Each structure stands twice: as C-alpha cells, then as structure tokens.
C-alpha cells in the first residue's frame, strides 16, 4: 500500500472504503493482461457496493484471462481533501494503481444527480473531463446504465455509451479495444469501429442542431455511424453470464446480501415508470437456475440473506416454485429471503404464508396515487379494495408497520388526488383497528413516502411538463394539512433535487456546460442533501445562458425532435404517444399477461416476451 495513503487513512472516516482487499476481490498480474478496466461508480462505496450491475460486469470482465477489472468509487469529501493535498491521484481498489493509466474507464449512470461526481472523479484521476481533450487511445471513458438512455447532458464527457444489457456488448468492446491496442491504432479509428457495434453510441459522431426557440432541430450522424442506435438485449437469461461470487465488503453497505435478478422487464407498464419501459422485453430466468446460482453465491460469500430483486418480483411466473425450492434449504442454512418489490394486487395469502418465519419487519406497497382516477391515469392497476385486502392479510400475518409510496405532481393531478393520499393512508390505519385478529399489544404505523414525479424519456409521460417547484410545494403542504391521524408519518423528497433531476433527465447536450460549471463551482454529491447546493446550480445555468425551466416544466408536442430520438430502446414512440393519450382519458392498459399491448419491445427478442 502507498505509504502516503497509510498516513492519511487514519484521518478519514471509514478508511476501509479505500483499502480494497475484500473477500473475492480479484487480483491479477498486471503484466499478463492486455486490458485494464476501471469500473467507476460515481457515488460512495456503500452505495456502489450495493449495486448488482457492478457485480455482474466485474465478474464478467474478470472471467476473461486477458482483462483485469478493478473497482473505483467516489471518495467522500474528507478523503478527497486528503488526496488532493497529498497529491494522491484517484486509484483503483484492487491494485492501488492510478486510474489514469487504465485502458478503459467505465462509469455506470444510475441517477442524474451523480453527474458532477463523474467530473470530479475524472479530475481526481488527473484526466481532462471533456472527451475532446483526451487525445490518446487510452483511456477510453465510457458509460452505461439507466441514464444512458438519454446521455445527452453528459455527452461531451464520454467517448462512448453502451445501451441496454451490458453482458454481451461489454465483451465485444473489450475484443475490439484489444485488437486496436495491439495494432497501435488511434482513438478516432477505434471509435469509428466501435460505433458500428450494435448498442454502442459514440456521441461525438452526431451533430445536434437547434431551432431558434431552443428545441432540438436535428441529430445528424457522421463517420458512418448509424442513424439509430438500438439497445442491446440479452435473450436467454438462463445461459447469460452470472457471477458465482460477489466481492464481500468489510464495512456495512446499503444492500449487503446475495441479490438475484429473476427477470428483466415488467408486465405492468405504469406510465411514469422508466425502469419498466427501458428494460422490456420481458425475459425470465428459470427457477432452477436461480436456485442453483443462489446456493453457490451463499456458499462463496457467507451471506445469510438472499434478495430477489426485479422490477415486480411477484409477477415472476415461477415465484411459488422458486420460493419452495429456496425454502427447501435456506432455513437449514439460516439464510433469509427478502422480496423487496411486492405489488399489492398479487400478494396472495399463500405466498405470504410461505414467507412467514422469514422476516417480518415491515411491508411496503406502492399505490403511487391516492385516488382511483389518478391511478388509472398512471396505469397503476390497483384498486382501493385490493390495498385494503392486502393490508388485512398482512396485519393478520403479524405485520404492524406499513410503508406506502406515492408520487406528487403527476399529470392531471388535482387537489382531491393529493388529499386522497392522506385518506387512503387513514383507511389503512382504520383497517388495522377494525380487525379482531390484529397483532396484539402493538399499534399500527403507516408511513407515507411522497416523492415528486419526474417525467422521464421513453415513458408515455416524456412529453409532459414537470410540476413546478411552487406547485410541488403547495401539494406537499396540502398533503401535510390533510393528514388525519397521528399513526401516519409523512415524508417528502426535496423539491429542488427533483427539479434538477427533471432538467437532466430530458436535457440536451448544451447542459454539459452547466454541469461542468457547477462542478467547477464546487458541486459534488448532489444526491446527498447536505451537499446539494441549489443556488450554485442556478447560478451555473444563468452563467451558461440556459433556463432550467425550459427543460423541466415545458410541454413538448408529439412532433418535436427529442434529444434522445436517435436512441431506440425497443418500445416505439408511437406506442408511448398512444399511452399518453389514454392517460389523458384516464383509460388503463391491461398488463402483458392479460394481453400484449404491442409496445414494440418484443422485436428485440425475436418477437417474443416471457409472459
């Protein structure tokens, strides 16, 4: 370990964030690999190490003999200060080598508010933040993840983006890079070849022009790059690479357990839900494969909890089979099972029984809206009756704390819809007290978490204006004043944070300047409330001559060229438009199990969805 590091680590909080050496981390001989890959997570160690995508790609790259993948997280501000004042550049955890010397630097874009951290990490590495200022073949700076569906606000910082599932395209990029490195070619030649790979987007090959009113006029490809870049889709989840071990952190991280993705896509199509539309078509992994992989992972990590994480895990067609397979061996091994995203409308009595004795701390539901009309608008096909029925089952099963998730600022929302949230929560409280078989000796605790709706690309609401900061404030106040019971806790999300998220979610390339300015003025860790500096952000918009309201609060018409129109995530624009129209009429769309709505995503999977 670097001697300077030894001396500064005792001065920072949680030094084990910065040491590496965790169980199952991969050490290779750097002289015997052709490619060194730095997997960068632009947030703290604790957040990054909880993320499944990094675990999959880390193992996938390290499974190759010719490549070594290492991990890098954003140093917390105390560590950054020490690193800067002692001249220690950003380094990778496994080898301790400077990130600057790696061949490929890959970021994952999980949320919009991590963008300044990316710039800060590149700078700490000693690299220019703008792609155009990095001239050599190494390092190539790339990114993937959900925000890569509209990467335009960060387009100037990256050499390329990978769209969709990373498992296959990652290997193709590594092969291509290796060939170019051995051939001694330059960055331009590599990027030109990379742009021909399906799912690879090289932003510098696209020229964006704007109309006088600020709207995108056209997106014009050059250098033979394709007009449309289509995301990658892994067709068979049973045969696709899955790790047989995870790096086991020493320190407590947010999700510290075996996580398993049981399927991709979601049948529900809630109209606000970007994760759903980005991850379609629907593909399932078989219960046998999942069960075997979980066993191996538990053995190799020593974890005592398995979490089945997918968008709506209880929609998985093999859920009962899978649970009974897991429950065959998990109690004996003292392993718990957690199912984080259960939907209210198919949470059966039977399923709950299978899970009893597993974990009974609290239960979460996401009705998302307080009235039936509003739920119809967003296509959340859940009725009040179902919510009460599920609560009753849960209370009878011994639960006494319920957490309900809602959104404020949904399209067409009225004051009645906002108040409906409080009334719904109250009914859940009343349901508890009306039950003779309620858990004894305990009161009920209903917590309401009300986030702010942010319209996202590739959803039916991508054309909708986001509710303004003032409107959201009014809605929060109204909900707070309507709250009828002491048994209900309401928590809100920061409005300014949501506003900025809204700006970047649907932003264009010109915002790169704003992000760079804000970072230069000290913005980092924007998703952490105590670091978020809204005024600095507003100053940065002003000094770049751009209006954030234009991005967040403006209604787009269907004919407008959207900044992400050259990217294809499967679901067709025509379908999204139709869904937007249906939303205006509060008309619902049946889920994929009942009837395929023809969203267009199945074309990426040979016309097939696993429903």
């Amino acid at each position, binding site marked *: *370990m670097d*001697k300077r590091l*030894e*001396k500064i*680590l*005792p001065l920072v909080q*949680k*030094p*084990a964030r*910065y*040491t*590496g*050496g*965790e*169980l199952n*981390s991969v*050490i290779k001989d750097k002289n015997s690999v052709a490619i060194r890959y730095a997997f960068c997570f632009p947030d703290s160690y604790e957040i990054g190490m909880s993320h499944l995508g990094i675990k999959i790609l880390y193992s996938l790259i390290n499974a190759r003999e010719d490549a070594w993948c290492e991990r890098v997280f954003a140093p917390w501000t105390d560590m950054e200060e020490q690193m800067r004042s002692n001249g220690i550049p950003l380094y990778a955890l496994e080898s301790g080598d400077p990130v600057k010397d790696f061949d490929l630097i890959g970021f994952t874009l999980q949320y919009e508010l991590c963008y300044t951290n990316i710039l800060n990490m590149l700078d700490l590495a000693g690299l220019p933040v703008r792609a155009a200022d990095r001239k050599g073949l190494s390092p190539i700076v790339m990114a993937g993840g959900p925000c890569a569906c509209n990467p335009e606000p960060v387009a100037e910082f990256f050499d390329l983006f990978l769209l969709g599932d990373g498992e296959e395209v990652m290997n193709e990029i590594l092969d291509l890079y290796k060939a170019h490195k051995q051939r001694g070619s330059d960055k331009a030649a590599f990027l030109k070849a990379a742009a021909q790979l399906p799912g690879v987007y090289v932003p510098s090959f696209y020229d964006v022009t704007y109309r006088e009113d600020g709207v995108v006029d056209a997106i014009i490809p050059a250098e033979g790059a394709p007009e449309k870049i289509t995301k990658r889709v892994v067709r068979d989840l049973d045969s696709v690479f899955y790790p047989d071990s995870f790096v*086991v952190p*020493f*320190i*407590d991280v947010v999700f510290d357990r075996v996580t398993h993705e049981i399927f991709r896509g979601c049948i529900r199509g809630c109209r606000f839900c970007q994760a759903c539309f980005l991850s379609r078509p629907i593909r399932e992994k078989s219960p046998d494969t999942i069960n075997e992989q979980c066993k191996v992972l538990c*053995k*190799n*990590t*020593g*974890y*005592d909890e398995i979490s089945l994480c997918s968008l709506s895990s209880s929609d998985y067609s093999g859920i009962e089979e899978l649970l009974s397979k897991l429950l065959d061996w998990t109690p004996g091994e*003292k392993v718990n099972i957690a199912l984080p995203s259960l939907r209210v409308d198919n949470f059966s009595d039977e399923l709950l029984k299978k899970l009893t004795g597993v974990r009974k701390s609290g239960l979460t539901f996401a009705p998302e809206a307080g009235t039936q009309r509003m739920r119809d608008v967003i296509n959340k096909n859940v009725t009040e009756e179902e919510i009460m029925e599920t609560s009753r089952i849960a209370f009878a099963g011994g639960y006494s704390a319920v957490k309900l998730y809602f959104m404020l600022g949904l399209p067409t929302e009225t004051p009645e819809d906002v108040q409906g949230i409080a009334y719904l929560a109250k009914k859940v409280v009343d349901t508890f007290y009306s039950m003779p078989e309620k858990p004894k000796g305990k009161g009920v605790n209903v917590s309401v978490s009300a986030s702010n709706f942010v319209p996202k690309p590739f959803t039916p609401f991508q054309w909708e204006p986001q509710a303004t900061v003032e409107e959201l404030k009014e809605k929060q106040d109204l909900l707070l004043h309507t709250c009828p019971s002491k048994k209900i806790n309401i928590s809100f999300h920061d409005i300014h944070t949501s506003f900025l998220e809204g700006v970047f979610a649907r932003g264009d390339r010109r915002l790169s300047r704003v992000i760079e300015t804000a970072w230069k003025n000290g913005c980092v860790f924007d998703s952490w409330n105590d670091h978020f500096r809204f005024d600095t952000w507003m100053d940065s918009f002003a000094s770049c001559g751009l209006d954030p309201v234009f991005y967040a609060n403006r209604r787009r018409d269907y004919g407008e060229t959207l900044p992400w129109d050259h990217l294809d995530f499967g679901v067709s624009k025509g379908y999204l438009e139709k869904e937007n129209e249906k939303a205006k009429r509060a008309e619902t769309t049946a889920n994929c199990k009942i009837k395929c709505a023809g969203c267009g995503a199945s074309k990426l999977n040979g016309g097939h969805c696993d429903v």
Partner: protein
Amino acid sequence: MYDVRIRVSKRGRIKFVSHLDMFRTMQRAVRRAEIPLWYTEGFNPHPYISYLLALPLGVEGVAEPIDIRLVEPMPMEELLDRLNAVMPEGLRVESAAAPFHKPAEIAFARYDVTLDRADITPEELTEALTCGELTCEKSGKSGHKKIMKTVNVSEHIREYRLEDKGEQLLLTVVLPAGSTFNLNPIQLMEAVSGRLGRRIYPPLTVRTALLCEDLSEFI
C-alpha cells in the same frame, strides 16, 4: 459444546477494517467454512464468536484471540485448514486450542511501533516517553454521559524499549489492555504528537502479544 480459542493474525491493509466490521467478517467466514458452530438462540440467531479484545483501527495483530463454540468436536488441524481456505486477504488463523486463561485475565498488551526517523528522532521520543507528563484526550464515561478525559499517559507505560534501525525506529511498548483500562499506541503517539506540536503517525503498529497481570503470556 466445545470452546475453542483461535489466534488470528491481521496483517496489511485489512488493519483499516474496524472491530465492528471484523465481527461480521468472521461470522461470514465461519459460514463459508461450514464450521459446526453453535448458534445463539432467539429471534435472529447468529454464530457464537467472541473477540476478546478489540484491535484499534490501523493496528495490525499477529495472534488475536477469538473464542468460538462448536456443537461437535473437530480436529484442530481441520478447523484451521477450513477457515484459512475462506479467509480474506490479510487474515489467517494461526492456531487453535482449548482456552486456558479467562478473558478477564488480560491486563496488558505488547506492541511494536515502527516510526520514520524523518518524523521523529530517538532523542525526541526518549524525552517524550520519560518526561512524566505525557497526556492525551480519551473518551470515557461519567455516569451515562460520554465525556473526554485527560489521561496521564506516562503513568501507564509499563515497559518500553527503543531500537535505532537506521531509517526507522522500533519502539516496543507494553500498555494496559483489557476490560478495565485500555491505552493503545495510537493514543500514545497522539500524546507524543501533542507534546512535540506536530503529527507523528507510525507507518506500522503491530500488537504482538496479550499479557496477564504478571506480564506472562495470555493463552
């Protein structure tokens, strides 16, 4: 049930993993090793593992005692092999045997503290160690409240020896350890730093032994 005292060395970068985190690390290791460990009863059963004495953050150890409890006997060799096959980098089980002393008999610990000569001269260090009024701030309790107390470190240095190794100085020191009163070499060096008015941080500090009241080895 069979009580076993294992001795674990903690070397290299893992020294920055805190005592609390070591606990979880060991729990997972015994799970991976499939050791027939006795689990605590109750709602959230966990394997019985007892660290006898916390190792301060940043300090390495060569034979830290940890008591575990087995539900069936197991050859010590096999126990060692199975555990060492699944340990993270820097952790090794060096030995395993039935406990002899009671945990409460730990009274002192011996440390090897390596210092850079560029940071401090032997004369400065000797002066500080013999001045008789070396003090440091230590968190303590007054009733239920946490308070900071000033401790006279000089009174608690049971033994020390200083060796000049050219570029480096090796300080071997015996300090109080155990359940009643603890003073660790990091605190000792903070006291020295305070006296000299500049930060002196030893690049390497290793706990080499735990001792009983009469300075005999704790086993």
